[in-house]
């Protein structure tokens, strides 16, 4: 019985695996939709980031070391998502990038971002703003 249960879970898991599932790539309104490395940011930015930028926000891109799983990404989105200055957060595990949109009229300096990444449990490598982000 236990063996059958484990086998069933394995089969279900493979059926749901990205690349095997037909619907992969259709993340719809998922707030953390993916902008893969090498793709044009303008055309692949997550909807939440695009909307926050359209509302007058400014983009900050941070390179972060150590982000290897969903717990890492969850830590980052929750830590930054609860800040009033941040109107959108996106984590891309492929590029190891954290993207933030700072709301119109708001500010979040580099020292604070560095500290928040550390409090999430990770290590900040670099921060880019404006056109460079």
């Amino acid at each position, binding site marked *: 019985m236990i063996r059958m249960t484990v086998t069933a*879970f394995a089969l279900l898991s493979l059926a749901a695996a990205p690349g095997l599932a037909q619907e992969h790539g259709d993340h719809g309104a998922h707030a953390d939709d993916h902008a893969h490395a090498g793709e044009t940011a303008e055309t692949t930015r997550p909807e939440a980031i695009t909307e926050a930028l359209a509302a007058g926000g400014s983009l900050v891109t941070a390179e972060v070391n150590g982000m290897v799983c969903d717990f890492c990404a969850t830590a980052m989105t929750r830590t930054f998502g609860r800040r009033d200055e941040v109107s959108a957060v996106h984590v891309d595990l492929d590029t190891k990038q954290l993207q933030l949109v700072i709301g119109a009229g708001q500010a979040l300096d580099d020292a604070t971002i560095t500290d928040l990444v550390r409090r999430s449990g990770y290590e900040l490598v670099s921060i880019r703003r404006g056109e460079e982000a």
Partner: protein
Amino acid sequence: MNFKTLAAAAGLFACAVSAAQARPVSYEGGWTVIAERDRASSYGLVHYTPHYEWSVGLRTEWMRDEDLLFTGLQATHLVHRWFAPDSQANLYAYAGAGEAHGIDANPRGSEAAGFAGVMADWETRRWFVSYEARISDFGAGADAMQAARIGVAPYVGDFGDLHTWVMVEIDQRPERDEPVTATPLLRFFKGPALFEIGYTPAEDEAFASFIYRF
């Protein structure tokens, strides 16, 4: 083993090194719920992370063979985290203290109990390796265990996808009839939730664990 011996051993472990729980310390302000059943015991742990290097929580553990139930507090310290662009490694030390009493067929009353251990892990998005060692005294004599785990992800998903890992855990529990066993298991991981299911053939026991972060 008395508490002085236990504390000394815990200190020794902490000074040396510190793996089965996935990330026993969360982000600052984060709560985590963990439930696990292995071949020897079942436990639940709810912990809070006030600082990115510490978590504190309430733990309850049922030693099924002895019919002993432990309830107490657990503190976990992230001794060090090594960062690289594509990997991270962690060293943790933990200890807990509370009381344990007999349940069901065990008439034993409440006694002081405690445990201490170390965990270490290294992971990329494809590979996972971990080690854990624990000593405990739940009032029925000192106990010790160690476990090592290796895992591979057949595919690499993005944040929010369903991640699947194929893993094997080898554990050693000297006091048991089967001191060393292997447990093949599957890990499913999506967003803040992680679920594992496995089987230990040598003892015909199921393995299951669940972790949720909020």
